[in-house]
């Protein structure tokens, strides 16, 4: 009986992304929320009042209009099942990429800046990995399909860091840092405006006061945020590095959520799935405990 945690502790586990079981859990935990996200876009946006991107060229509401939406549901379901089942991967990844491109562009064409480009890109790079493998059989498909995804995830974070340095420079965490307090007030009051619960407004006041009275903590938080984002290329060094660095990102996202009640699911969830693969770890733990108990 396989002891998965012994296997995880071995160097061979960290040498490459080759394990097909890990890949299965990555796919499953990625595609399920993606499918729900795309279904939500299909249901929620019957029009594209401010067309952007591909919606300037085609009518992105077409997949969700009239009886065509049932065809779209069928195609989405088929592609998702084939994707998880590891069959016809060129077809499934490309179809999912096209659907994601269309429907998430539709969401942006309704005024939502969801920073959701990562979802579409992950499907595209997985398609590329399978395409390259189809062209050249010697390719390490098992490694590339995950490593390409890690490349895009690292690129998103480093773009965020570069954007901060480009627009604000070091004043982002120095002179302009008090502006962060205003952002905290804004998002806390947004929650108040959305829910009517005065506790959010009080939370905003408490956090603002704390950060105003502790400028070192304020500057430190912002400095480490930028450093972590700009250092995201370290994820490219290997599986171990991606795994470890993901926890830095996780800490950053948790901090953002606690202070600002902001959560970036379209960035954080894919990052966790492809760098940490928590569902696989949970499954491995359960199986290890089960196997140990049976022995």
């Amino acid at each position, binding site marked *: 009986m396989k002891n998965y945690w012994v296997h995880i502790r071995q160097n061979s586990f960290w040498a490459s992304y080759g394990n097909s079981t890990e890949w299965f859990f990555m796919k499953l935990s990625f595609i399920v929320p993606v499918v729900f996200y795309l279904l939500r876009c299909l249901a929620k946006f019957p029009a594209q009042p401010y067309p952007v991107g591909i919606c300037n060229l085609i009518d992105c509401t077409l997949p969700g209009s009239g009886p065509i939406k049932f065809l779209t549901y069928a195609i989405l379901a088929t592609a998702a099942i084939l994707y998880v089942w590891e069959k016809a991967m060129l077809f499934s990844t490309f179809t999912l990429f096209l659907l994601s491109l269309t429907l998430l562009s539709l969401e942006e064409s309704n005024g*939502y800046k969801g920073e959701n480009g990562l979802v579409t*890109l992950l499907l*595209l790079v997985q398609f590329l990995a399978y395409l390259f493998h189809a062209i050249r059989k010697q390719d390490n498909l098992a490694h590339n399909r995950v490593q390409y995804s890690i490349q895009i995830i690292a690129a998103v974070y480093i*773009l965020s860091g570069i954007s901060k340095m480009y627009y604000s420079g070091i004043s982002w965490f120095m002179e302009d840092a008090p502006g962060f307090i*205003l952002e905290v007030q804004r998002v806390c009051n947004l929650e108040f405006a959305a829910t009517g619960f005065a506790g959010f407004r009080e939370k905003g006041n408490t956090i*603002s006061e704390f950060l105003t009275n502790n400028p070192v903590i304020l500057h430190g938080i912002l400095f480490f945020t930028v450093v972590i984002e700009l250092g995201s290329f370290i994820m490219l060094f290997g599986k171990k590095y991606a795994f470890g660095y993901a926890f830095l990102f996780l800490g950053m996202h948790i901090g953002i959520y606690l202070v600002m009640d902001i959560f970036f699911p379209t960035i954080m969830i894919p990052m966790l799935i492809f760098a940490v693969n928590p569902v696989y770890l949970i499954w491995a733990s359960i199986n290890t405990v089960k196997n140990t108990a049976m022995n």
Partner: protein
Amino acid sequence: MIYRKEFTGKILKVVLTLSIVVWLLLQAYNFFNTVGFFFVSSHSQITAWYPNTHWLIFIALILYFPLTYATWLLAIVHFRFPDKSWYYWPLLILQSALVIWLQYQYGFYAVSAFALLFTLPLVTGRIINFSRKTIHSAYHFANGKFIGSIFLFIIYIILCALLPRTHPFAKYTMFNHFGKETHMYEVRDINGHLIPLRQYSVFFNDELFAYEEAAIKNYIHGNNDTVSHMPDYLLGAEMCRYFISNLKPGPFPFDSVKLYRVSFTLENNKTVMHEKLLGTYQAK
């Protein structure tokens, strides 16, 4: 990568012959129209009929026919003698640039249609063969151990930096700049009491405020960018309209709503809240 058989262009030669026929017909047609007229007439004749013509167009159109013909000749030679006539490509680029310039600047659409008929069949074959080799070389380079680990990373960063925000490319500018003021919006009833958005609308979180940017951009674009900002009462009306059109099913117990802009500034190390009424709008 497996090489397929080199593209020989037998069908293209047939198409080429047809292109020559079309060219001759167009030449006859154009003789009585703008382009042929320019080609065969002197500058003084041209300016007599087209007073706005200037030297640049005249020279461009004079050059157009021999340039296209030379490109065609070299394309044939390039096909038959691939080792020779490397200058086919710069000539093609020059010809294409000229066609595009003439078309978009002065509307000589017959020029581009003619160029397409003439050169596209030949270009296609060359592009197919050239692309296969290029893709193969690029793939070998990109799939090396080191480059393979970073090339998508670099390409995506470059594309996001260069392209405007277009899904899936974005610059991920979340909180990249802290201003001296931030703001958000509150919807209140006629007595000034807050109407909790999530209780009545189908939004997630602050979607109403994400809609603000789209509404402003649409307004500015709708005014051909002659205005720099949207008047508050119009913005309020637009956002209220969006709010009302996204209500949850069921009764909405307010006849009219007020939209407030709530802004925050730092004064003497303390956060100060300011409110501004944008307008009162009918809910039903």
